[in-house]
Every structure is written in structure tokens, then in C-alpha cells.
């Protein structure tokens, strides 16, 4: 791919006159090889494998109910996956989302029980989530020299801390009947949460791949300085993405609470890592700049169905842990092995960025 381009490139190089640029074609090159080399196909394969294996190990797996209803049981986290994907495309990571979920959920519950109408309580929840994210963003913009790890690490502790301050170790619930419909109800047989998920997936996908904003995200992931020099408001984008992340964490909080009918400060422990794992499995490089929406979507279902299937077979939790961990590593390894092309490209680009330095020989 790149290699071919460079070969053609070499030929051109010897063609003299600098004056005429008519050589330059503007038609999109298309190669089926590249098309089928896409990471998503790998994920599709894995997903099918998971489904097949599940159907074999459990008689209860292969039915309409599994595919329409059960996603509801693992989709609540999924809402964070998309903004986290944005964050990771920026080459950063936000480990405070789990705590943000807890904080916004707790505040929603408390404010409702303090007499706020449910609608307003939900809005407040969203607001809190967004605010939490915005604070992360602000800290990162205002203190550039701070690494995102330490910032989100400390807010992770602080946000959950606040949740504890508000609610102690009590639970808070007693929401109106209708509220539980969010997680349990369905429209025409399709769970509401599934519908919400599809909407989220589509809109995030469009923003990422079709808008200026998305384009800028990828650019920043590769080279933030070049972006700034190209007149892109990098600070604003960084800030927006983290705010978005907080906001979606609040969405997760709403569905999670609706699912449990009550909430407490220790919900959503360790969500951040599960979410990051899904994004990574989705082929989004944690070094930034690379990723397509399809990957994480597939990853969500792979992890979800894997866990569900093994649950149907009543495998013990430790086994499930091992399997999922191995899956993450193995699939990423497969990524490396299948994508020699990328490897060459990476080599050349580092050779370019870091100068005539190492290439992976």
C-alpha cells in the first residue's frame, strides 16, 4: 500500500519538469486488499466465533431473545465507549469516568428524593456529568505540563469521594415507576436502551468521520502542534471531548440507576478499565490518531456476548476473567501479525518524524 505509493513516487521523482503538476491525480485509489485488511473484519470474525461457540456450549443462547433483549444487560457501559474513543484518539485517557457515573447518579437520586421532579433530576445528572468532564478538560488545558494520567487519576478519587460525602454508605432510590422503563422497557419489542445505543453510535460515528470536528480530532491525535499551527483551536477541542466524556458518563449513570432502581456511591467501580479495554479491542490505537467507530461497536458486542454466553454455561467468574483478558491480548497480537503493511508504514513515518532514525528492521 504505502510501499506501492512510494514505488510510484520514486518513478515520478526522476520525471523532471517541476513546472507542471498535471501528474497529480485526485481520484481516490481503491484496493480490495486494503479493504479486507481492515481491523473490523477481524472483529466480525471473532464475534461470529463467539456466537457459534456460545450456541454450542449453551442451549439457551441461540434465540431471538438473546439478540434483542440481552444487549440491554451490557449496553449501559457502552455509552462511555464512544466519547472514550474520542479521548483515546486524542492520545489521552480518562480514568475518572467510573467515578463520574457514581457522582452524577448519586446527585440525581439525592436531588429527586429532595423533591426535584424526575425530569429535572435527570437534567441535573447530565449537568453534573458534563461539569465533571469539563473540570478534567479545564485542568488539562490550563496546566499543559500535567499528564492526563495524574489529572484524571486524582479527579477519579475526588469525584467518588464527593459521592461518598453526599450519600455516606447509604443507597438512594425510590424512583417513579416510569423511570425503570428506561433500562427495562422496550418500544415495539426493541429495548429502549438498545435504541438509545444505536442513536448514540450513529451520531458519534457521523461526528467522528464526517465533520470538521472529527477530522480535527484525528489530526490532534497525530500531531497537536501541527494542528495549532494550522489554526485549529486545540484547547477548545480537548476541552469539548472531555466534557462530552463526562456527559455520556452521566447517560450511563441514568441507565444504570434505572436498571438498579437505586444507586449508591460505589456503583460503576472499574468501569473505566472495561471501557478502555473495549476501545482498544476496537482497534483504536492508544497512541492516538487512529480508529473507526465500527471497531468499538463490534468490541462491545464481542465482550458482552462472550460474558453472557459463558454466564449461560455457568462458567465461574475467574474463568471469564482469564478468557476476556486473553482475548484482548491475543486479538491485539493478531492485529500486529496481520498488519505488516502498517508496520512498514509506521517505520517510515517514525523515520520521518524522528528523522533518519530507527526503522523496525
Amino acid at each position, binding site marked *: 500500500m504505502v510501499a506501492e505509493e512510494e514505488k510510484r513516487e520514486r518513478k515520478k521523482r526522476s520525471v523532471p519538469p517541476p513546472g507542471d503538476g498535471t501528474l497529480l491525480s485526485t481520484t481516490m485509489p481503491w484496493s480490495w486488499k486494503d479493504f479486507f485488511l481492515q481491523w473490523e473484519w477481524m472483529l466480525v470474525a471473532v464475534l461470529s466465533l463467539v456466537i457459534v461457540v456460545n450456541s454450542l456450549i449453551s442451549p439457551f443462547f441461540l434465540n431471538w431473545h438473546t439478540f434483542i433483549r440481552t444487549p440491554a444487560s451490557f449496553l449501559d457501559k457502552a455509552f462511555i465507549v464512544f466519547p472514550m474513543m474520542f479521548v483515546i484518539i486524542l492520545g489521552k485517557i480518562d480514568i475518572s469516568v467510573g467515578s463520574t457515573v457514581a457522582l452524577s447518579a448519586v446527585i440525581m437520586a439525592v436531588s429527586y428524593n429532595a423533591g426535584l421532579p424526575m425530569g429535572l433530576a435527570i437534567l441535573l445528572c447530565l449537568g453534573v456529568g458534563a461539569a465533571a468532564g469539563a473540570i478534567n478538560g479545564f485542568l488539562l488545558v490550563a496546566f499543559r505540563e500535567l499528564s492526563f494520567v495524574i489529572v484524571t487519576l486524582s479527579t477519579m478519587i475526588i469525584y467518588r469521594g464527593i459521592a461518598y460525602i453526599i450519600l455516606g454508605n447509604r443507597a438512594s432510590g425510590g424512583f417513579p415507576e416510569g423511570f425503570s422503563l428506561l433500562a427495562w422497557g422496550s418500544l415495539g419489542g426493541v429495548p429502549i436502551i438498545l435504541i438509545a445505543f444505536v442513536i448514540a453510535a450513529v451520531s458519534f460515528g457521523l461526528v467522528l468521520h464526517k465533520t470538521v470536528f472529527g477530522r480535527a480530532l484525528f489530526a490532534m491525535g497525530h500531531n497537536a502542534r501541527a494542528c495549532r499551527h494550522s489554526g485549529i483551536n486545540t484547547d477548545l477541542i480537548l476541552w469539548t471531548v472531555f466534557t462530552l466524556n463526562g456527559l455520556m458518563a452521566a447517560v450511563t449513570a441514568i441507565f444504570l440507576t434505572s436498571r*438498579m432502581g*437505586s444507586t449508591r456511591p460505589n456503583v460503576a467501580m472499574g468501569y473505566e478499565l472495561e471501557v478502555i479495554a473495549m476501545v482498544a479491542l476496537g482497534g483504536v490505537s492508544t497512541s492516538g490518531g487512529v480508529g473507526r467507530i465500527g471497531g468499538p461497536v463490534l468490541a462491545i458486542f464481542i465482550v458482552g456476548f462472550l460474558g*453472557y454466553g459463558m454466564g449461560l454455561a455457568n462458567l465461574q467468574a475467574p474463568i471469564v476473567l482469564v478468557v476476556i483478558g486473553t482475548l484482548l491480548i491475543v486479538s491485539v497480537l493478531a492485529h500486529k501479525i496481520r498488519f505488516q503493511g502498517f508496520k512498514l508504514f509506521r517505520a517510515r513515518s517514525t523515520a520521518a518524524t524522528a528523522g533518519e532514525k530507527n526503522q523496525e528492521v
Partner: protein
Amino acid sequence: GRAEQTGTGRHAFVFKNTGNPYGEKQMEGFGVGIGEQGFEAILRAPDQPTAEAQIQIIEQLIAQRVDSITVTANDYDALQPVLRQAREAGVRIVSADSAVNPASRLTHVNQADSEMIGRTLIQAAYDMAGGEGQIAILSATSQASNQNLWIEWMKTELEENPEKYAAMDLVRVAYGDDLRDKSVSETEGLLQTFPDLKVIIAPTTVGIAAAGRVITDRNLVGQVFVTGLGLPSEMAEYIQNGATPYMFLWNPIDVGYLSAYVVGALIRGEISGEAGETFEAGRLGIFEVTRAPDGGTEVLLGAPFRFDPGNIDEWKTVY
């Protein structure tokens, strides 16, 4: 009932989390009890002690059309929605050890009467402190319902007979989050802040073991006493070296075993979960369904069992 439809009588037990010997024993007991009645037992536990995880497991069990689910809840209320689903799917719901709210369960298997536990622990402290001195409570930030209930009863016990406990005062309730390291620093914090502390009551297996450890390391055995609820295996050393003259716990195997028979009785229609009904629980004998403080019904296993140097050796290897 469903048993005929699905042919197999499959009954699930969901504990709080894996890798917890106390839970393993409950599941073991449940398995035995179910086996004795000729049913098939499914034993599950999430890797994290959270309600979210338990919800997922319960959904998987519903999908398998099990006949009953017995759950040791990580959250009193949070399981209600999913348990409603289960009930609508015709699954019978029982909670054991750590309850779910009455709306969600047919009945609850209570390992021991909270009031009795609370009062007994204070009396034990009284007895160890020789009637006077400071006492402190080392709890876990109990997300599980029972923890705080016991502490409440301890306080009532103190308030209700002021003259008896005149010379004793409860100086603090500390929280060790059921984490080893935090429980240790909390204990050390207590010792630092209250130099003449007499007794530490820890109604949590991790907390009491951590406390015992600190007392032993600091050679405070004989000056500060630890009691509460603990696993014999974990506490054997401290009971033998006198850091913990005695402590209490029920037999988790029996908790599981009894639950199994409650389930069986429900399936066979011997009971419906109403107060006043009685049934026969294998080797444990006859039990009666009674009103529970929280408005639902419960089956009470019995008084907490007292572990002391006399009997610890035979129990430490059991659980």
C-alpha cells in the same frame, strides 16, 4: 409448577463475590441441601461484589429458566427490578444471609437475629473490658444491609441500660472498607488516638482479622481485646494467642443448607413464604417462617455460634 414443564429442577445460588471462603461454604451447603432433595444446583458469584454484576448473573439464570434463585445480595434494593423480571418468568426468589427487600423475595434466610448479634457483641465487650473502658467499632463501609443494622443494635444495647454500661463509652466507629491495608491503618489510627482503648468490636471478617493482626504485632495482647464476627480459620491464631478471647459466627454451611430446604419447601408447595408456616429442613430439623423486622418474612437459622480456645481447633479447618 415449572419443575414439571422444564423437567429438571434447577436451583441457583448467587453469592456476593468469588474467592470468599465464607461464600464458598454457603454455596457448598446449598449444593448439599439441593442434592439431598434430588435437584440440580447452580452456584454462581461475580468477580466483584457489586449489584450490577449480580443483576447480569440473575438475567443469565432467568434465560436458563431455572426454577429458583437464592441470592446473597450486594444491595438491599438494587436487585428489585431484575428480581421482578425473574418472578414474572415464574422463578421463585429467596434471599439468604444478606437480604433483598420484601417486595423482591418470597422469604429470607437469616443467619442470625440482628438484635441478638448487636446485643451479644456489646455484652462480650463488657465482659472483656471488665465492665469499664473505651470501646471502638471497626466496620466495613457495609454496602450489604446487615452491617449497619448490627451497629444500630449495639448502640441501643448501650443506651437501654445506661447504668450497666456507665463506665464504658463507645469512642468511634471506624470503617476499613473490608480492605486489609485500610483496616490495618484504621486499627492503628484507633490505637494511636485512644491510647487506653480496651476493646475493638469488628463485625466483619476482614476487619476483625486485621485488628487481631495489629494487636498481635504490637504485643498488645491482654491490654486490647478484639471481638466480633470472624471466620474461625482466619481468627484461629488470635483466639489461641488471647488477642480475641472469643468471637461469634454462624455456620455458613448451615445457612446454605437451610436455604436449599427453604427452596425445596417452596417448590413442593409446603410453604408459600407466609409467616407461621413450618417445614422440615433435613438434618437441621423443623423451622418456622416468621415476620422479619423489615416487614417481610424470614427463616431464622439460630443463635450465632461462639468460637473460643476450647472449640476453635475443630472449626478452623472447616471454614
